[in-house]
């Protein structure tokens, strides 16, 4: 049964993360980070890592803290609150924590020691290289290939719109990359895909210049081309041919972090807006007294609380799943919840979070009028930042609806394989 009571440990952890953010992710610093753009400031990453928030769910014997996902979600909410541009949440909650945890689950000891543990310490960057020039959401349709040569794999392909490429290049690190390792089976194209960990400095990896993003400026988005990249077999993640399934699990973890951080960003936007609408008078009355504004605030608040409940339920389901599957190695299918049932909740959270934070930022900007359109407030930066999740980071919004629809209607109603 779910218990909403926060444990003493959770309360203290949330308090500690808040206190750290109060000191280091100040509005001025977040504004500076957004204005200056990537690479992400190393002092903040190292601070977050020292605190223990990056990949907190990784087991202690692998360098993490062994936190449950409920606690990690509470932490991600705080991170989203203090950096509502979501650069910090995107880089270090969704990507590093969501995907880093999943990499750690399937990687060899070599990858763990060389990349996962240093990333947990804030020294290196690990992430996900999913999207290709043909698109991001069609994971089974990606064209990167890998062929086995002795104890090595030779990878060829191109990855685009990848978070943190500049950081990985500067600090060292690498990416989860899926590659086709067998023929396309028309009725099951998701088979014969294998996951690898590709170091950013591997021979044959050419990192392209980061894109000129509209938002979450503090973390880079770039890409890389792989030309005959030779990867030892010990850099393979999990079993040959099962990369698609592992990828869905990685998306689950990353999307949960997105939902949680968007709940935090929404709360921040409301907290910043409320004093202003109470103070600012128009036609002799505070803005907050106008129903047009008060009702919008009430609706946003209700939706935010609903999102938080959804995040907590989803995190709770993930905790049960991992408890049943065992950490760090997946040993069996989950029992209490089918992975597809969890994926439905994950997709609901991923859909609702970014749209809600976007709406909150938009409404706050409108309440503030011209002032809301300036860089005096973080609303516009939050608006630009969370838009990255709306346009597709960690899975397009319509893909989330397909996942939800699949669970409601049955597999036969999935519009495409």
């Amino acid at each position: 049964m779910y218990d909403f009571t926060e444990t003493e440990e959770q309360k203290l952890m949330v308090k500690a993360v808040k206190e750290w953010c109060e000191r280091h992710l100040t509005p001025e610093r977040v504004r500076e980070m957004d204005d200056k753009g990537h690479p992400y400031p190393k002092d903040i990453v190292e601070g977050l890592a020292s605190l223990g928030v990056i990949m907190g769910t990784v087991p202690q014997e692998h360098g993490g803290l062994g936190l449950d996902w409920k606690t990690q979600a509470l932490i991600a909410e705080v991170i989203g609150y203090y950096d509502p541009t979501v650069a910090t949440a995107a880089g270090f909650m969704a990507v590093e924590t969501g995907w880093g945890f999943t990499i750690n689950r399937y990687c060899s000891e070599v990858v763990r020691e060389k990349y996962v543990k240093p990333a947990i310490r804030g020294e290196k960057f690990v992430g996900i290289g999913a999207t290709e020039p043909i698109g991001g959401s069609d994971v089974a349709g990606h064209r990167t290939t890998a062929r086995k040569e002795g104890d090595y794999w030779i990878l060829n392909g191109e990855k685009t719109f990848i978070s943190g490429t500049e950081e990985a290049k500067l600090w060292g690190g690498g990416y989860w990359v899926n590659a086709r390792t067998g023929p396309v089976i028309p009725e099951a194209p998701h088979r014969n895909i294998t996951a690898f960990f590709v170091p950013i400095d591997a021979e044959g990896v050419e990192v392209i210049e980061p894109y000129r993003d509209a938002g979450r400026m503090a973390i880079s988005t770039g890409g890389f081309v792989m030309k005959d990249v030779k990867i030892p077999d010990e850099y393979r993640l999990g079993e040959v041919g099962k990369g698609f399934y592992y990828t869905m699990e990685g998306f689950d973890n990353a999307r949960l972090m997105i939902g949680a951080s968007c709940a935090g960003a929404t709360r921040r936007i409301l907290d910043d807006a409320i004093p202003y609408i109470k103070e600012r008078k128009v036609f002799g009355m505070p803005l907050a007294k106008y129903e047009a504004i008060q009702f919008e605030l009430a609706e946003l608040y209700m939706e935010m609380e609903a999102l938080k409940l959804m995040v907590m339920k989803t995190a709770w389901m993930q905790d049960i799943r991992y408890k049943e599957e065992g950490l760090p190695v997946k040993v069996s299918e989950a029992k209490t919840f089918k992975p597809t049932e969890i994926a439905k909740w994950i997709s609901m959270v991923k859909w609702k979070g970014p749209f809600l934070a976007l709406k909150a930022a938009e409404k706050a900007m409108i309440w503030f009028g011209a002032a809301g359109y300036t860089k005096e407030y973080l609303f516009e930066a939050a608006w630009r930042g969370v838009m990255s999740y709306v346009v597709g980071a960690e899975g397009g919004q319509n893909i989330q609806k397909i996942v939800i629809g699949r669970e409601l209607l049955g597999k036969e109603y999935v519009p495409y394989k």
Partner: protein
Amino acid sequence: MPRIIVCLKYAIDVSQIKVDSATRKLLIADAPRKISDFDKNALEEAVKIKVKHGGEVIALTATAENASTALREALAMGADKAIQIQDPNIQNADTMMVSNILAEAIRKIGSFDIILCGEASIDSYSGQVGPRLAEVLGIPAVTYVSKVTLEGNTLTVERSLEDCSEVIMVKTPVLLTVTKEINVPRVPTLMDIIKASKKEVLTWTLADIDVKGEKIATPSIKVVDVSAPKIERKRIKISGESPKEIAENLVKALIQEGVIGG
């Protein structure tokens, strides 16, 4: 190696007190509590001394409410032991009674070298408990300390006073009250919190430390009323013919109000 006792007040978080706009009364019933800010400085200093010289840090509080979460935070920050004297009678205790209670608890704890307190609490801000406690225990007190250096059993401490600072040498056992300037309290890491959750927070009642009779009798100080000050804006409009004149008038007004020196 010094044995250090840090006295922490489980104080009302004054930043979260709401005020009844009609009566100006403070609505403290629902206000959350936390370790008083200056006491956190005291704890940080104790942990710094321990890191440098070894020894032991014991966090101690006298509280009407259960302060175990706050004490757990103290353990996460580096305290080795945490003890709360919890009793509903402490709710209305004045500074003399709290000092007596803490003194009895310290006697029960046993030997110590240094007692650290904040200069005052964030809620009542009397600044009395530290010096009173030293008096009850019969040890010297040095207040408003902004720097501490320990060598052997001698402490060199800097006192920050309003218009000067004093440097004093004092031997242990001693009680120091510290200012906010002495350090920046650390934020415990999540691993520190995990480790702290495995440590025990001891709870003693007043009976456990043999406090009774006159020590918990009627407080000597009776708080008659507490209300929030009413701050009204003066609505002064600074005007002038030119930006220079406006600036000059603004400066004059600020000097007149005593905001800046003339």
